[in-house]
């Protein structure tokens, strides 16, 4: 009797230790990144895993200036903002027509859109690059906005379609009888009823756009058009030996998203799940 209890206690204790270790392994790289951004290069060279002696925030300011980080933040924000606006507007209208309006050939249209999901940015990178050059969009933020939005449409349409399906069609039919136009029904009924779906699409695609790298690397060649991802990558090649600042720039890249995540945690997770499940 006593033995069984002792075994159980031992098991629960060892489980706790294991979980604790797992958490440390999981979170420590990020803690290490933050701590070392407050330590001088000499301190890091002497001992890479020590604690900072003081918290001097000027290193962030220095890295910010050297990387022209304000501009990179603005560029990333500009791309994500307009991309998400286009994705939400175009994909929600299509999904609305696919689920609620009377459209013939719905299935065919939907299948065509969905099948385009196998096309990734990587696959069509070369022809897109040539197209951007021919259109004079190379090294222009709108190259990334438009191509990124187009490639996101299939997934976004699927997410919207899933969200709109729970809106009863009788609602639409009776509204039509009352003389409500399709567009009005969309704005006054569909949008408020499907708000969680809209927020999922916004979060998922904003995060995706914010972290995008390949198009930024390929289309946006000049320094003034760097996004956060390309800016930190260039910073790493330019300041290789300055470890304090390498850590600082990584922190700077994470902090904006971290702040949003803290406030919008529930929506972040819901958005990621919706993006995955409908994909």
């Amino acid at each position, binding site marked *: 009797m006593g033995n069984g209890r002792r075994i159980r206690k031992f098991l629960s204790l060892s489980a706790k230790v294991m979980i604790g270790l797992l958490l440390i392994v999981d979170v420590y790289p990020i803690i290490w990144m933050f701590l070392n951004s407050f330590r001088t290069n000499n301190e890091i060279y002497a001992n890479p895993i020590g604690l900072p002696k003081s918290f001097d925030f000027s290193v962030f300011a220095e890295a910010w200036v050297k990387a022209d980080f304000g501009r990179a933040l603005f560029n990333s924000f500009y791309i994500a903002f307009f991309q998400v606006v286009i994705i939400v507007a175009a994909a929600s209208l299509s999904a609305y*027509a696919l689920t609620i*309006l009377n459209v013939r050939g719905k299935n065919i249209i939907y299948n065509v859109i969905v099948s385009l999901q196998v096309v990734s940015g990587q696959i069509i990178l070369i022809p897109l690059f040539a197209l951007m050059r021919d259109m004079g969009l190379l090294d222009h933020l709108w190259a990334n906005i438009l191509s990124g939005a187009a490639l996101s*449409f299939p997934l976004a349409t699927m997410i919207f379609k899933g969200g709109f399906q729970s809106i009863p069609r009788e609602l639409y039919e009776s509204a039509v009888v009352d003389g409500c136009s399709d567009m009005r029904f969309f704005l006054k009924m569909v949008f408020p009823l499907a708000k969680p779906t809209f927020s999922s699409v916004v979060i998922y695609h904003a995060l995706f756009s914010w972290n995008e790298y390949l198009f930024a690397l390929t289309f946006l060649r000049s320094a003034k058009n760097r996004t956060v991802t390309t800016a930190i990558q260039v910073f790493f090649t330019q300041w290789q030996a300055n470890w304090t600042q390498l*850590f600082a720039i990584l922190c700077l890249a994470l902090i904006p998203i971290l702040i949003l995540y803290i406030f919008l945690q529930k929506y972040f997770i819901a958005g990621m799940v919706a993006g*995955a499940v409908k994909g």
Partner: protein
Amino acid sequence: MKKKGVKAVIPYLYFLPMAILLAIFVIYPLYSLVATSFTKWDGLSAKEFIGMKNYVKAFRSEKFWYSMKLTFVWTLLSILILQPVGVLLSVIVEYVVKRRRASGVMRVLFFLPMLMSMVAIGLLWQLIYNPSLGLLTSVLSKLNLIDIMNPPNLLGSRSTVLAAAFIPTIWQWSGFGMILTSAAMMSIPSELTEAAAIDGAGKFNQFFRITLPLLMPTIFLGMTINMIGAFKGFDMLYAMTAGGPANYTTLTSIFIYKLSFTENKFGYACAVSVILILIVIVFTMIFNAAGRKIDERFT
């Protein structure tokens, strides 16, 4: 009559913005990709039609096959490891940890790496793996597991680079697998497990007999997502190793990028892209079919 015709067209206008952008930025490039794959093109001068030569070249190229092999291994690792680790984390967070506050905090922490861009992750892990100043060297030498005078360069040697490069992927994507699994767990009606508990089934049996089978479609979905992600695996590896050392981490996607943007072999690179998308399509079809089977079987 005419008015009716116009009215029938109106709903199709809702597709217009999407259709235009898809046509210009997805469908036309796709066509152009296939067309260019039959040409010799340096990116600037006129394309020269050379038939199947690019494809023949690819199939005879050792580098191409090596990149394919690497892509397969990378994809297989992604399918087999990422989602199961996610399920494990989810079980810990939802089952093993009893206090709700604690599991809430853990959920947030395990998900944290998902917020970083894959580029930032590649760069951070480059620092972690640094043989002289990295986190790993420091910790292992403090534990007396390695000789500080002769630390291993995990990203620099052929035998370790692939495993070392894959670990950050686990670090990031297991958090995603966890939230996916946890969301599915929450949608399982609690009556099912409660009924089993009344019938005398222990926690262990409840999980393996009831919860896990119901989670199968979600687990498989996670695997499919990781499969697709693996084929896209470019950002992190390119930032961390740029395909090196030599070409030991040159996935097909990195191979294509280097062919086009450093060697200016655009026609050849297009042919390799066409081969890659065909493989992705086959894999996607297999996974979709299998997914439907699993859905039928477990729900």
